[in-house]
């Protein structure tokens, strides 16, 4: 019952996602596109919820629905909000890359373990027990995701924080005030 519902929901979400993705690709005016990306995030967050990944869904919700839209719009404040037409040859390349990637992914999916099946390699690897069972008495916190991210793979998370930090510093460097006044020229504002 629950499985059927979640499968139906899965399917429905995927159809929605595809529709939104197509619209994203088709629309030339970037303004509705920015809004649609927000919608896309909402949909994928729902999908993550259906897939029982609340942490990912929460992230997607917070970042995708909130910040991303705002940042997109802020960017439009700096640039034009209408996509420049791309020459056909480049679109063809893009199409080819997309089609090939899709084809390989489909090819790859032919031998994938069945969704939700208990005998997938991931389910059978000792990691699973370690993370799902042992963590409870090794780390003593109920949220396994936090345990894995913070402790077992804490080093990765440190890296991710560094990624965020890098992005921030990069944006600050490129767009922060005073970019113009280089080589001795004093910046005019503040």
């Amino acid at each position, binding site marked *: *019952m*629950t499985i059927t*519902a979640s499968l139906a*929901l899965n399917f*429905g979400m995927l159809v*929605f996602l595809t*529709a*939104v993705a197509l*619209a994203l690709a088709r629309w030339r005016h970037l*303004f*509705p596109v*920015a*809004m*649609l990306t*927000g*919608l896309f995030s*909402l*949909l994928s*967050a*729902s999908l993550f*919820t*259906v897939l*029982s990944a*609340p942490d990912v*869904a*929460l992230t997607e*919700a*917070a970042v995708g*629905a*909130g910040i991303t*839209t*705002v940042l997109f*719009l*802020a960017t*439009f*404040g700096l640039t034009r909000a209408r996509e420049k037409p791309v020459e056909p040859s480049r679109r063809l390349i893009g199409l080819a890359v997309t089609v090939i990637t899709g084809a390989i992914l489909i090819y790859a999916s032919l031998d994938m373990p069945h969704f939700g099946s208990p005998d997938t390699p991931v389910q059978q690897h000792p990691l699973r027990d370690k993370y799902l069972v042992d963590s409870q008495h090794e780390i003593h916190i109920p949220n396994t995701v936090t345990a894995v991210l913070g402790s077992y793979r804490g080093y990765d998370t440190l890296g991710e924080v560094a990624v965020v930090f890098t992005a921030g510093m990069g944006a600050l460097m490129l767009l922060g005030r005073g970019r113009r006044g280089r080589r001795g020229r004093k910046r005019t504002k503040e």
Partner: protein
Amino acid sequence: MMYAAGLAGVAVTMLLILIRVLLGPTVYDRILGINLFGTKTVLVIALLAFLGGRTDYLDLALTYALINFIGTVAVLKFMQYGDLGWAGDVEDDSDV
């Protein structure tokens, strides 16, 4: 069962809204649609939380409820000023 039924109802609504969003015709229709879509997502997640018995998922719904608002505000502001950082005209208090 009742959660599933509710879910189905909301899903149908989402479909209808999505069609409206894709059709437009004005930007405001789309904003309206997306805003509604956000609310519906909150409902979906809340229902899912009860359906799966994982009530901690409600945190998600709460997050949505909070954050969905910002997107709409940002869009509206951008539409009006073409800029997000603008403090606005403080004197103008014509509304309400």
